[in-house]
């Protein structure tokens, strides 16, 4: 295991998350979620040893984090914080080159091989045309990519990203998430990222850490989602307060789609109905009838008849 937390309690003086027991290995992409203020950033800073743990220990490659120097940790973990500083006079090239900082005793001038690597990273992120742009001239999406590029140049096996998709539009979010998944799967990196966009992000993560009620629960994304019905439960987005849902037997996505459709279009109590998804169609039944519908439009036409 690359990263291991053993009965760890985390917080600034007052504990925020208690008794964390979890681990991650190279090639994993893990999504960290939790409401504002539950301690996501504190957890990230604890893993970086910027805040010491209150109890228990964090192991990095089987070594206690406390015994490692900041430099050793930097060799293992690169980080992208949620706030992207914009130092004056820094170009995109200067920023990404800074990833090589820890590999030089003085950082006077980059070696030819490192310059080439930086160029490759810039190209792989599709940023070549912005190479000599100042950071404040970049769009939010490109700035985020540049900071990820800096973390990549650090060449560490693990990358932690705090809210990498905030302030990005849908298309850029997906680009970044795809990039992160590619790093984990094709470059054997360990990616840990936090996000408020868990609906979208979960599709790209194969593990999940959820912080709730001072506890951290971890596991395969799908298992966590099943256990935390409240996360998936579309009632979170209740726009129709009179609506009483039917029984739905279907995979997550179809279930959510149907729920959303029904609560928008029907004020009634549908609790007597049972909807079952059969791969390509819905079987709709209540004590008096059973019908098959292939589209939501058919469902819309069918249901009023029975009321």
């Amino acid at each position, binding site marked *: 295991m690359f990263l291991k937390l053993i009965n760890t309690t985390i917080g600034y003086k007052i504990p925020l998350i208690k008794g964390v027991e979890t681990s991650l290995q190279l090639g994993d992409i893990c999504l960290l979620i939790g409401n504002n203020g539950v301690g996501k950033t504190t957890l990230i800073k604890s893993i*970086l040893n*910027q805040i010491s743990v209150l109890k228990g220990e964090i192991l990095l490659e089987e070594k206690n984090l406390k015994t490692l*120097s*900041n*430099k050793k*940790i*930097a060799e293992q*973990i*690169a*980080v992208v*914080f949620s706030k992207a*500083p914009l*130092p*004056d*006079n*820094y*170009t995109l090239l*200067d*920023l990404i080159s*800074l990833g090589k*900082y*820890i590999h030089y*005793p*003085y*950082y*006077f*001038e980059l070696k030819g091989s490192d310059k080439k690597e930086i160029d490759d990273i810039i190209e792989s992120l599709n940023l070549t045309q912005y190479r000599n742009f100042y950071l404040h001239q970049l769009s939010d999406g490109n700035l985020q990519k540049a900071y990820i590029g800096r973390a990549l140049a650090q060449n560490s096996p693990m990358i932690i990203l705090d809210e990498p998709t905030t302030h990005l539009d849908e298309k850029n979010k997906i680009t970044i998430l795809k990039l992160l998944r590619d790093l984990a799967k094709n470059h054997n990196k360990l990616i840990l990222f936090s996000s408020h966009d868990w609906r979208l992000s979960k599709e790209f993560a194969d593990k999940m850490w959820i912080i709730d009620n001072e506890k951290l629960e971890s596991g395969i994304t799908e298992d966590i989602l099943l256990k935390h019905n409240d996360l998936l439960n579309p009632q979170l987005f209740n726009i129709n307060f009179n609506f009483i849902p039917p029984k739905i037997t279907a995979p997550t996505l179809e279930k959510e789609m149907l729920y959303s459709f029904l609560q928008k279009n029907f004020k009634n109590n549908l609790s007597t109905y049972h909807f079952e998804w059969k791969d390509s169609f819905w079987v709709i039944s209540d004590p008096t009838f059973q019908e098959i519908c292939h589209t939501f439009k058919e469902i819309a036409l069918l249901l009023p008849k029975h009321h």
Partner: protein
Amino acid sequence: MTKNFKITTFFIVVAILISMVVNLNIGYLQMNFSDFFSSSSDNSQIAELRVNRVLVMLLAGISIPTSGFLLQEYFQNPLAGPSVLGITSVASLSVAFYIFFSQDFILPEFLQNSFLSISAIAGSLVLMVVLLAFSGKFQDKSFLIIFGFLVSALAGAVVSILQFYAENQSLKNYILWSFGANNQVSRNQIWVLSIIVMIGLFLTFKTIKPLIGNSLGTAYAQSLGVNLTQLKFFVIIASSLLAASVTAFLGPILFIGIVVPHFCRMLFNPAKLWQQWILNMILGILIMEVFSIVSETTQFPLNVITSLFGIPVILMMMVNNKKSQV
């Protein structure tokens, strides 16, 4: 970029050599080559004075811009400098205390010279300790700059009180010192000055890499393994030593600490701090040698010339800054 840096450096170094030779030849007396090398020559004492002048300008040209550069990079504020943090004014205050109260003591000659610098450095050391004590409590970088401004104002007020009650001779000595006395530094003082400057430069050498790591802010600096406490100590100690020692011997040299780093950023990629530091030192030497030549030929005090040159540049910087923010 690297080529560009080497070419720029080469030209500045050539210009420095020329300006040094010119500086050696400026003065009332016409000197010839042998005066500088034979101690038996009639003019050898004047020759020594001129060599001292050139050396002292070299040390000042290295120290003041380095001090300003360190403070600007650390506080990420292009208007920070030794005069802004209050280092120059506290050094001036200590020198004033020394000049106004020392007239009653009769000290041996060698002690008189070193007391001036010791009092200036002692004053800056006290300020340094105060700054360090406060900066631990206040994380806010701008606080330090406001603090420096208040310290300068306070030091200025105390100097005025001293001037008001001072004897005529002391007052004249102080005012002469505050003009920038580039001709009155002895060889022994140069030794003392160079040792202090060397310590300051050594600390600066240790500081450049952490400063680069600090350019993305403290959170990133920590994640890159930068020791933030050590960085703060080194920056404040190095910049104080460099600025205070030169102030003690040469009087307050204003604006050079702000202006030279600004020019260097226009000459080469400002993100590359090692190259910037080297540029600061060599450009600093060149400017100080040239100013010394101007000061000798026009008979204006050094400080008047640095101000006449510096103030328009700083005004220009502020106007441009406003533009880029809009």
